[in-house]
């Protein structure tokens, strides 16, 4: 176990930070907002925490908190600006936001280290600490999936007009989802940066959008459990299919395509559906029998 751990500690770290990144994209999706601002938040969190350590001399966790809070606030404000956009337009605007973050990083002079990025922000972060942070985030998100809160969130996503008619403040819920997305994305960026001691503009890029999105599409978009499944699959996949060598990317593409076509709600969606069918097998049989009679 301990040798396994020593060999794979980086993969464990990456799984946890990828989970946070995936959650930062999943949260707005759960509220019916097609926003990728979580990736911009990743950049802001990364630069924010690195700046706090390098320029302000802060220690690790205050720097992480600083990065996350700044990212949360910026994405919240972005949400106020773009909240009227829908679907594709929302997606485009939030991807543009991510591009702006990397452009600002390139042109930030000494503050951001320009195109070379910022170096020397090595935090002291143990895997256990990351795990605790992730557990806290997941526990809070879990509350938004339970009971009345879970139902309201589903209504905001699936039928916002109905949600309004039932007394849910759809606009506020969606603004809140931007804030949470920014905080979690910022957290992911800050932890990733301080683990590596460096961040460059090139890292705040479209590939993170793809990574987060594929993790959610394959794992499941409706619950943190789906994001976890997706993060595990895509961080560990290269070690499992490494023998495919140059075909690895093809396999990756096939998995995503198959999931998108056949598992619209991801691996988790399939599992939930099976459980639902098993649980309701008796009443469904009765209803089917009744329908035949009449």
């Amino acid at each position, binding site marked *: 176990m301990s040798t396994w751990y020593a060999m794979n500690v980086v993969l464990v770290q990456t799984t946890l930070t990828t989970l946070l990144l995936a959650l930062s994209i999943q949260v707005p999706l759960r509220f019916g907002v097609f926003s990728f601002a979580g990736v911009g938040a990743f950049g802001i969190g990364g630069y924010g925490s690195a700046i706090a350590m390098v320029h302000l001399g802060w220690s690790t966790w205050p720097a992480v908190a600083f990065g996350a809070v700044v990212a949360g606030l910026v994405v919240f404000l972005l949400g106020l600006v773009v909240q009227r956009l829908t679907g594709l337009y929302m997606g485009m605007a939030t991807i543009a936001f991510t591009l702006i973050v990397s452009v600002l990083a390139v042109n930030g002079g000494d503050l951001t280290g320009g195109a070379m990025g910022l170096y020397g922000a090595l935090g002291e972060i143990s895997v256990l600490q990351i795990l605790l942070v992730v557990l806290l985030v997941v526990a809070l998100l879990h509350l938004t999936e339970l009971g009345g809160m879970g*139902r*309201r969130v589903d209504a905001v996503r*699936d039928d916002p007009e*109905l949600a309004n*008619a*039932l007394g*849910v403040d759809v606009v506020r819920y969606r603004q809140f989802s931007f804030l949470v997305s920014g905080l979690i994305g910022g957290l992911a960026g800050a932890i990733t940066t301080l683990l590596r001691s460096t961040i460059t503009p090139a890292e705040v890029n479209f590939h993170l959008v793809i990574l987060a999105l594929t993790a959610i599409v394959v794992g499941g978009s409706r619950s943190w459990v789906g994001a976890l499944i997706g993060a595990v699959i895509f961080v560990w996949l290269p070690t499992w299919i490494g023998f495919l060598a140059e075909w690895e990317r093809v396999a990756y593409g096939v998995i995503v395509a198959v999931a998108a076509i056949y598992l619209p709600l991801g691996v988790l969606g399939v599992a939930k559906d099976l459980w639902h069918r098993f649980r309701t097998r008796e009443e469904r049989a009765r*209803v089917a029998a009744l329908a035949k009679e009449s």
Partner: protein
Amino acid sequence: MAETTPDQEAPLLEVRDVAVHFGGVKAVDGISMKLWPGRIYGVLGPNGSGKSTLLGAMTRLTPMTRGAFVFEGQDYTKKHARTIQHMGIARTFQTVRLLEDRTVRDNILLGTDSLGRETRKEAAARVDEVMERLGIQEVERMRPDELSYGMQRRVEFARAIISRPRLLLLDEPTAGMNTSEREEISAIMRQLLEEGVTQFIVEHDVQMMVDTCDYLYAMNFGKLIAEGTPTDVVRDPAVQEAYLGKGAGKHA
């Protein structure tokens, strides 16, 4: 029996010269009504006469061109749609609008999820009784897409009444149901009335409306063309011409 009756101080809902125009389409064009508590009101009208649009305006989901709504003495014309349920008005929709991935029980509970703690507690205690009443207890753990259309309508109905509204707006609650099911729903409406729920129903089934309602309105081209007791309205020549087609009155 139920003309504008002055034994209550104020109507439960007053509709004042409400109009909803979509560009050139005058979907609702100057409607005024007074709904007194303790009655079932019905609206008849041919397809496209503006009935659903009127309900949309009443629940402030549809932007209005002019007019005002006053509920229990309070003008709520400028309020946001999400505040309507809190005031004590609940509705169903002409098309079934349920959460696909949620069970019947969850869908019903959604009807009070945004209301006060007391109301939610009461709903949790009452949900079994409400399902029983609508005959959907058996399927409480199933999802809407596993149910027949009529069953789905019952779930909608349950979601609207779980909050104990003082005014219930129903848009074709028995569409897709057979005669015995319609009678069942009609009986539930009369029961609800006894529990103090004033109702405003849009339906195409004239016989059912005559049997169920205390007072009828008839609409055409966004305007009221008749109102009064069900038998009077159904016999009204303007209504017969617009809605029932000439000579169809003898069925009613």
